[in-house]
Each structure stands twice: as C-alpha cells, then as structure tokens.
C-alpha cells in the first residue's frame, strides 16, 4: 500500500491537483460537479489525452513530436474523405491507423536514420503534414461524414458513455502494457535514461526509437478519427497548437521532458486536469483575457504541486527508513 503510494507519487500529486480544482470550482459553481459537466470534461480530455498518451512514449525516449497537431488534421481529412466516398467505416479506420503509423515512422526515420534532432525533424514534418492536409482537401472541410461511421467511433452506447471514451481507455491500456510490460517499453525507458548505455548493451536503438514514433502516432490517428466522428467534418485546419496541449498533459502528468520518465496514467490525469480547468473557467464565466492568465497559473501551480509532493514523498521515504531501519525500495528523486 505504502509502496503503491510511493511508486505512484507523481500520479497522486496530479490527483491531488485535480481534487483541489474540482472542489474549488464545485464550491463556486455547483453545476461544475453535475454528471453532464463531468461527462463533458472527460470527452474533452479524450482528444488531448489520446495525443498525449502517444507522445508520452516519445518523450520518454528523450524525443518530442511537434507534428501531432498536423497529423490530427491530415489523418482526419483523409479518413473523412474515405468515409464520404463510401469506404466502409471499419476499413477506413484501419487505413487511418496505418496511415498515422506511417507518418510517425517517417518522423522516426528522420530522427534515427538521418540523425536530425527530434524537435527540428518534427517541426519540419509539422509543416509538411499540414501542407498535405490542405492539398488533399484543397483547403475545404470535408463535410458529410456518414452516421454509420460517427456512431461507430462516438456513439453513446450507454447513458453517459461514448465509444470514444472506451477507445481512449483501450489505447491507454495498450500504451500502458507496451511501456510497462514489453521489451519495447523497457528499451524506450532505457534509451531515454542513457541512449549510449542502451546501445552498448546491444539494443538496436534506432529500430525501437523509430517504432515508438510510429506507435505514438496511433494515439493521434485515433484522436483524429474520433474527432471527425464527433464533428461530422474533417477539417484540414484543425489541431493547430494542439501539440502544446498534448505535451502539457504529459508534462503535468509527471513526464520528464528530459526523457527517461513518464507514465500513461499520469498523462491521462494530466489531460483530465487540463480539460477540467478549461471547462471550469468557462463554467465560472471568467473573462477570456483572464482565462489565459488563469490557465497559465494552473499549469504552473499544478506542476509545482507535483514538485513539492515528490519532495515530500521522498522525505516520507526517508522517515520510513529512519523509523523502520529498513531501506525503502524506490525513490521518487530524479
């Protein structure tokens, strides 16, 4: 139990921040805690959450992916065009996932085979993919995504429960398993912790690094396909600036931008915190200009809570050790 708390101290700190936020907003505006509103928050969290979960894998390797926003638009536009053209929804989705994966792999290849810095490589593809989205749609939104498709990815299968939320959950579980339970996951962490040492251990670093860029993009592809389901439209202009929000979800959730550390659960919580904050400011009717300031402050404060919580949990570890005379297992220190 103690071990659980210690192992997940970062995630807990986000939970603490979320609870503080919900209580604060709830006191001022009780409607914030209504079932409808909480559903809205969770639905809002799906898009950034899916993108963020994917990106978490990339950030753990010490990389970054700025192209996710453009991929959101490109994959969304292409899949929308397919469904409109009458391609069966399931096939469109499979093609969409494969397409997203390919775009991610392309990023990965630029970074590993061509040796570009992740920031600059994905900044380049961010522009390229955006341009492609405009070119394939001629700049027009793709209208009329059929209902069969929309139901498939975003239908309400139970009251308050949409397929999209289930997909979000499933992808989170998938990434959790990949990062925690597979060889790839170990290598991703190892590369982020010490790429050279990993290479010297005989790991084909480039291969796994490329792979994680591809898998990460599955999250964005999924987000794209859910978004067109939600909106009924494939918009080539969508997703601008989303990369920062997705990265913020990961970072608030305790993912270190320096690599080596990050969890899926943290990112999911980070996305919920982010969505909850946005919705909360709106429910409170905060003036837009002050919303910027409030958003910034919450980002800063949430991360600071994480920093403090980590320190406290380290000290607790210390106290535990002093009193029990036993060495504790893990340290949250970085």
């Amino acid at each position, binding site marked *: 139990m103690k071990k659980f708390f210690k192992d997940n101290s970062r995630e807990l700190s986000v939970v603490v921040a979320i609870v503080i936020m919900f209580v604060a907003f709830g006191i001022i505006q009780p409607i914030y805690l209504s079932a409808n509103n909480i559903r809205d928050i969770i639905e809002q969290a799906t898009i950034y959450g899916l993108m963020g979960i994917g990106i978490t894998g990339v950030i753990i390797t010490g990389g970054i992916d700025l192209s996710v926003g453009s991929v959101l638009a490109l994959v969304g536009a292409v899949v929308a065009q397919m469904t409109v053209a009458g391609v069966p929804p399931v096939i469109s989705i499979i093609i969409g996932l494969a397409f997203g994966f390919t775009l991610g792999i392309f990023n990965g290849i630029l970074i590993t085979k061509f040796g570009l810095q992740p920031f600059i490589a994905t900044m380049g593809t961010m522009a390229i993919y955006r341009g492609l989205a405009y070119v394939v749609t001629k700049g027009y939104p793709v209208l009329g995504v059929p209902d069969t498709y929309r139901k498939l990815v975003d239908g309400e299968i139970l009251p308050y429960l949409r397929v999209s939320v289930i997909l979000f959950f499933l992808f989170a579980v998938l990434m959790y398993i990949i990062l925690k339970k597979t*060889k790839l996951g170990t290598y991703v962490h190892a590369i982020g912790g010490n790429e050279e040492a*990993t290479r010297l251990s005989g790991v084909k670093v480039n291969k796994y690094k490329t792979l994680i860029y591809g898998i990460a993009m599955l999250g964005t592809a999924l987000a794209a396909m859910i978004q067109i389901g939600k909106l009924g439209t494939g918009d080539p202009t969508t997703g601008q600036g989303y990369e920062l929000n997705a990265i913020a979800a990961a970072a608030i959730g305790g993912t270190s931008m320096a690599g*080596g550390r990050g969890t899926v659960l943290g990112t999911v919580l980070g996305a919920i915190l982010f969505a909850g904050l946005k919705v909360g400011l709106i429910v409170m009717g905060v003036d837009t200009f002050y919303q910027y300031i409030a958003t910034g402050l919450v980002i800063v404060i949430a991360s600071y809570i994480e920093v403090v919580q980590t320190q406290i949990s380290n000290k607790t570890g210390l106290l535990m050790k002093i009193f029990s005379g036993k060495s504790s297992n893990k*340290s949250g220190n970085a």
Partner: protein
Amino acid sequence: MEDYIKFQNITKIFPGQRALNDVSFHICKGEIHALIGENGAGKSTLLNILHGMFSATKGKVFINSEEVKFTSAFEAIQKGIVKVHQEINAIPELTVAENLMLGNEIIKCGFILNKDQMIKETQELLDKLGCNFSAKEKMKNLSTGKKQMVQIAKALYINAKIISLDEPTASLSDGEVRILFKIINELKANGITILYISHKLDEIFELCDRATVLRDGEYIATLNIKQTTEDELIRSMVGRDVSMFGQRIKPFRVEKDKTVLKIESLSGTAGFKNINFELKKGEILCFFGLVGAMRTEVMRAIFGADHATGGMIYLNGNTLDNSSPSACVKEGIGLISENRKEEGFVKNLTNSDNIALASIQNYMNGFFVNRRLKEKNAVRVGEKVKLNPNNPDFMTSNLSGGNAQKVILAKWLSTNVDVLIMDEPTKGIDIGAKAEIYKLMEDLLEEGKSIIMVSSELTEAMGMSDRIIVMREGVIVAEFNRDEFAEERIITYAVGGMKNEEVF
C-alpha cells in the same frame, strides 16, 4: 593453447589523437590476459575495436583465424563477445533486473516481459556474486560499487565466449573483488577467454596468465606473468623505474592543536548518523570502509551537495555555511567526487574549461575570461598531474578514463581551497600517475592545506594517511592514528567483525 584472438597491425587515429599504432599480438583460448599500460596507453580503445564500438583506422582482428569486423556492440554480443565498460553505463530509472537483462529480456506470451522470471534469475545471479541488494531496486539508488557489480553480472548473464573487463575492480570492495576473482577463475575453467584491464598490479599477478603492455599506443611486450616480476612489469609500462608508491616521502606536518574542520553529530538522508570528527591542519585523514559504508554520502553532506538532516560543521572554529557547494568552495572546501562521468567533468567542455570551472574568477580580465590565462593554467596544472594529452583545447570527454580523472584533480588543484576532500582520488589511475598524485597531496600539505581522503584501498590508506577513520553502514566504528595502523584490525572493523564496540 592456440591463437584465439589475434590483433594484427591495429592503428586507431582519432581526430586530434593517435590512440593505437601498429599493435599486433594474440590471445590464447581460455586464458586470462591482462592489458596494462599507463592512462591513455590505448587499452580501452583496443577493446572497443574488438567489441565493435569503433572501427580500426588500419589493421585487422581475427577470432579463430577468421577476420571479424563488428560494426556495433549488438553484433559482437550476438557472437558471444561481451564487455564490461570502464565507465558505468547504467540506466538510472530502470531496476537492477531491467538493467542487467537489457537486450536479453525474457519474454512470455509472445511479447509480454516475464518480469518475475527476470527478477528471479537476476536475483540468483546477484546472490551468486554475493551482492546484498535486490533485483527490484532502481539503479539510481545503488552506490557506485553496486552499479559496477551489476555491470559485471550483466556480462556473466550473456553466454559469452569472450569477456572483457575494463577496470572492473576500480570501485569494488575487497570482499567483492574476492568473489569476482573466484568467478573469473570459474569462467576460465569453463574455457572462456578473459581480457582484463587493471592498474592494480597485485590483481594482475594473482589472476592473470599473460599480460600485454601498451605504451603511448605502441605495443611493448607480452609477458608471461609467472615469469615476471613487478618491477619488470612497471618498467615496461612506464619506461622507467617508479619510486615505491603509496608511501609518504616528505616529513609529516600535522599541527595537532589546529583544528581546521570539525564535524559534530552529522546525519543525513542517506542514512548515516552521528558522525563526529575533526580534521587537523596539515593532515591527511582517510575514511576507510567497504563500499556502501556511506563515506561518499558523508562527504557530500559536508560539501553541501546534499542537505544534512542534522549536525554542525565548523571551519577554523566558525560555523561553516554549507548550504550549497558554491558556499563551501567560497569558504575553502573542495570535493573531488567519486563518480567522474556523472559528477566530475562536463562532457562538452575542453580540458582548459573543465579545469577552470571552479576557479574562473582567477582568469578574469575585467568582465572577460582571459583565454590565455586559463589555458596557461590548464597546461601548468596538467603537467603536474601528467595529463596526456596535455592539450587545453582537447575535449575532456575524449580523454582516456584515467586522464579524465586527472582533469578533475587539476580542477581542484587550480582552486585555492584549504580543505580538499578526495573521494577515491586514484580510482582508475595508473601506477606512475598514482605516485604523482600522492606527491601532489604532499605538496598540498606543504602549502598549508588539509586533506580528507576516502579510499577503499588499504595500502593507499595506510601508506598515505596520518589518521584513518573506519566507517561501516553509516556510522564511524573506529579511528586509528598512524602509529596504531594494523591491517587486520582495520579490516575487521570495516567488515563488522567487532560490532558495537566502544571506539573512542
């Protein structure tokens, strides 16, 4: 015994440095073959060529009369040729088991890691190696010595035919060294070929069958250990006679009535507690103990690198502000840390910048750093520590392991501190240079400075220090003045033979 590994006319040129020049020799199957030579002689480079980390500029490597040219560590490992690197290459956020199995994970159900099995096998291996830590521990929580053991265990885990060990004992305790030697001998009995680099000659004599000597990248000789004397070995390594090392040459100059540093009931987060001692002016005070005794942690707490949880520190009678390393440096305390790669030097700086890092104010010209002054100092101090190459523009990260350690030493020699804490200062340093460092320590005393030395080498501790404090598991268990030095008693205290005995 036939030729098993054959190096033929190996030359390796780095930009700015010729590391190996036309080296040819062979290694027999199933022998323990030592590679010896001064820092920067090219030992690690030669092994790196064998293991696919670098390619040779010229020359060929044969294994079993077949030419091999590995282009990556991966290929070499596939062929059963593994290496324990000189620098610890650990991944801090992963567990011991994950580090050890990296690249050789055990899989179940197609793609899921079998963590239980990995932990079990790791733990078995660790137990066999006499390691008392858990396979589930995160790597970053291990001491240097324990990390080193994990590196060694990692090589053993792979079913290797050839194992290279690049200074494996540099951060191991005596007990661990014993176990390691036992295991190496077992490996040899199983027909595995071992390449062994060490600066500790007694180890070479105990363990190895033959030794190849390199000097300045040149092949000097391959000697049969059984028919060689220590002097002969040293002469071929250094090219001259080296005076007996590990002994004080100059007169002792402790001023018993002048206390420089006084520590009162210091305790810290790592777990050490109630540390009390005084450092006298002109003294070399040695902290001896097994790896894991928390000497490093105590020193870091004194230096302000970690925050102590209790206790007082006085420097020259005044309370020391040790809120941060910078405060300590200002007050005149320096620390040469044990872990040179992670805490010692900055990889993207040149030698002169690394050497100047703690004393930049000395090379200022108004607002600007005077590059000439800085480089002049670097060359001057580099000469003192026999840095090779002593080139101020050379990137420290491209130096050999021992030379990087010398750069760190040079950094603190350039900084005017009254108390220098040296944590394992001769780790990975060749015999010739070791003697130089000992001499430098005495020079420092002559300048009126005082030294705390953390050492795990008893010969060094007894040879060099005025007083030895023995630590075990975070507490001071004994103290010896020079006239009381006795090898057995010190070791007994260190390993915990005399528990809870009143020592003061």
